[in-house]
């Protein structure tokens, strides 16, 4: 009885010391994110801009950002069969629900021929399967609140396979940059693995590689919250990862502040082989795993930005990126 009590007490005190240590390291929890950043810096009225990928695409284009080419939009059930004609001239494409999130409802087709569609994994599906996927998306199955939705069909990004070969398995790696009041504060690359089935979703087993804001070089890599050194499928040494075009990519991410007016956001970027950095989507409620991938808490950086005085003329994206690269540099730990 007494030993049971004392081990329970030891457990509780270890919880408290973990909590204290996390706090010291500036690790941000979900409640803090929601209460102190999202609800404070993200005006609700701006949400529709980022919750709808179609709208995001349009405003991003208006602000001169590159985005994956829009092949078409399917809005009504009656148009579902149009998909086959729509993609005729495109060798590979992606179907996504405009209001989806977390990779839900994203269908990547790497090749198709006469109503036979092929996924990046080599799995073949029929035209009926594609139609069903679209009508599910229209009915709101993948979308916030289950509301009716539209299906966005866009060109498949050809990711930079020179810079990234061996870092991602059967999927486009994307780069997540947390942008706070227009300043990039933390970044990571998400590389799909066999376990994650070609999706760059970390909780499904994708590899998260923390990136040094100063250089775009890998800092640390994790899979399932555990540090790793090599890509589990390709065996590639992850410390060799360097994102090219780093300044341009960060500037594009930083400019999302001007596009949306959201104070705290996650920008998902991809590096296209030909067209360079592109905005894939913007997120008003970005996840917290980026801290694990970087081995650092977000709070010190966020507070650094919060402490900055607001000049009459707000700094341009390039100035903000320069500030971030100077102040948020990291020591590689791989």
């Amino acid at each position, binding site marked *: 009885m007494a030993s049971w009590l004392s081990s329970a007490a030891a457990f509780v005190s270890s*919880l408290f010391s*973990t*909590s204290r*240590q*996390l*706090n*010291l*390291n500036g*690790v941000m*929890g*979900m*409640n*803090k994110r*929601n*209460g*102190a950043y999202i609800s*404070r*810096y*993200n*005006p609700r009225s701006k949400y529709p801009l980022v919750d709808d990928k179609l709208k995001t695409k349009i405003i991003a284009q208006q602000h001169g950002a590159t985005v994956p080419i829009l092949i078409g939009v399917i809005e009504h*059930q009656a148009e579902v069969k149009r998909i086959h004609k729509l993609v005729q001239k495109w060798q590979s494409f992606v179907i996504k629900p405009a209001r989806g999130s977390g990779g*839900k409802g994203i269908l990547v087709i790497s090749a198709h021929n006469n109503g036979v569609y092929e996924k990046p994994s080599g799995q073949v599906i029929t035209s*009926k399967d594609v*139609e*069903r996927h679209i*009508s*599910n998306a229209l*009915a*709101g*199955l*993948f979308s916030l609140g289950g509301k009716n939705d539209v299906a966005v069909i866009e060109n498949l990004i050809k990711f930079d396979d020179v810079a990234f070969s061996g870092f991602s398995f059967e999927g486009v790696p994307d780069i997540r940059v947390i942008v706070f*009041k227009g300043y990039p504060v933390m970044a990571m690359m998400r590389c799909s693995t066999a376990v994650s089935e070609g999706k760059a979703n970390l909780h*499904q087993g994708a590899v998260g590689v923390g990136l040094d804001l100063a250089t775009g070089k890998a800092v640390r890599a*994790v899979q399932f*919250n*555990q*540090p790793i050194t090599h890509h589990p499928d390709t065996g590639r040494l992850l410390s060799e990862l360097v994102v090219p075009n780093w300044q341009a990519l960060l500037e594009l991410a930083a400019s999302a*502040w*001007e596009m*949306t*007016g959201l*104070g705290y956001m996650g920008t998902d970027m991809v590096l296209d082989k030909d067209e360079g950095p592109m905005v894939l989507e913007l997120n008003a409620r970005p996840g917290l795993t980026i*801290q*694990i991938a970087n*081995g*650092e*808490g977000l709070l010190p950086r966020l507070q650094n930005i919060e402490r900055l005085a*607001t000049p009459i003329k*707000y700094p341009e994206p390039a100035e903000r990126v320069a500030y971030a690269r100077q102040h948020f540099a990291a020591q590689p730990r791989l």
Partner: protein
Amino acid sequence: MPHEPGINEPSRLPFYVLILLLLIIGVALSVIRNQDYGVPWTPSESRQVWDIEARIEFTAVGGPVKVSFAVPNSQAGFTLVDNSASSAGYGLSYLNSRSSRRAQWSIRDARGAQTLYYKTQFLVDQYAQQKLSTAIPPLLQNLPTPTFGPAHKGAVAALSEQALKRSADNVTFTRELIKQLNDLDNQNAALMLNDFSKVEALTKLLAYAKIHSKTVGVIELEDGRRRQSIIPMIEVWEGDAWHLFNPESNEQNALNNVLVWDDSNVSLLDVIGGKNSKVSYSMIAQDITPISATKKKAAADSLLNFSIHSLPLEEQAMFKTIMLIPIGALIVVFIRILIGLKTSGTFMPVLIAVAFVQTQLLPGIIGFLLIVGTGLVIRGYLSKLNLLLVARISAVIIAVILIISVFTIVSFNMGLTQGLTITFFPMIILSWTIERMSILWEEEGAKEVLLQGGGSLFAAVLIYLAMTNPSIQHITFNFIGSQFIVLAAILLMGNYTGYRLLELKRFKSLAEG
């Protein structure tokens, strides 16, 4: 340039003031319920009601009959909650005078043995007060001056003198008199009791000392007693109330089991047109839950009463569940904000828990797993059919209804009546749960389904345990104020920005110094 939100952060002060206000309102309302309405804090304090029946028997001589009977009212320690009279063929009316109530039966023609019944129900209630109307101070000129024969004069003087010496006020004076009257060795007392009953003797002695008193008829409450007759006792005026004394006993503090039936000081029963009249009483006590006790009191109270108990029974039953929903919400908020457990659908666990309340826990869990499991299998087949979502959900709903019917019929035929309650599950919600879980399965694998399904079930069981806890049921149903406190707690938790319990594990690798 986008404007800069977050610069003019409103002060948190009004928020905390609001929470404080809610807490104060909640506590105040609850204390008022407890103090003024006598609602106890815990459900275990069960309370008693006495059903007392007076049976009036007489022989009618033929011709018109008029019966006037003193009936009791609320008094210190007892609240009258119900009364009724039954008497075939008699007309009944009540006469309420300032100091007493009487029931009056009348009939044009009656002959032979007659029986009339008068039933009352009293709630044992420590908060009940003597009715103000019966506590009117008596007038000095109404005090009769007793006359004593020469044989008694000396005894009266001696008894009074000794009582006066040993007393401080009317109450203690009366007590001393009773002590002497009950003293078998007291010569003076024996002299008085030769000619008078103790009640008569006491009345005369009190009048001699210029103290107001009256004879009242009481009944001693004893569970299951029948054919009891009324006992005369004395009430003495002291200060601003009447105090009851039993002239037969020196122990005056054991009077809480005594109900004053007749304090009219006139007569208990008057029968015109009959003879051989007598009254007898029978009584039973029953322990009731505080809820019905409060209900009875609320019904009896003429005060404006903002209580659920003033609603008809059916609405009350509904509110019983409704008042528990905030507790469910509180637990969901706790689980999500403080623990960080995922549930499928924010408040789905609350609805499942409400269903568990009807089905009981184990049959509920088994039923839930059976329905969702079978539903997932059927949904797996439906997904091959290429249906539109709305049609598919509708098909799942019908499948769920069929599953429920089959389980009900099978379990009924196997003699398991518990199976019947499975119909309480919210079918539409279950269908959506099945649909969501099925997608989750396809997209994220069985593990995530087990995780979220398990989380929801865990939350539902917790909520069920809270909702079926007698203390929680008692508090939420009887104290509206508790809802304000729950609201304050939910608002406070919404303000918590610390780590969730599960995040401590998630961020463990970041906790190294």
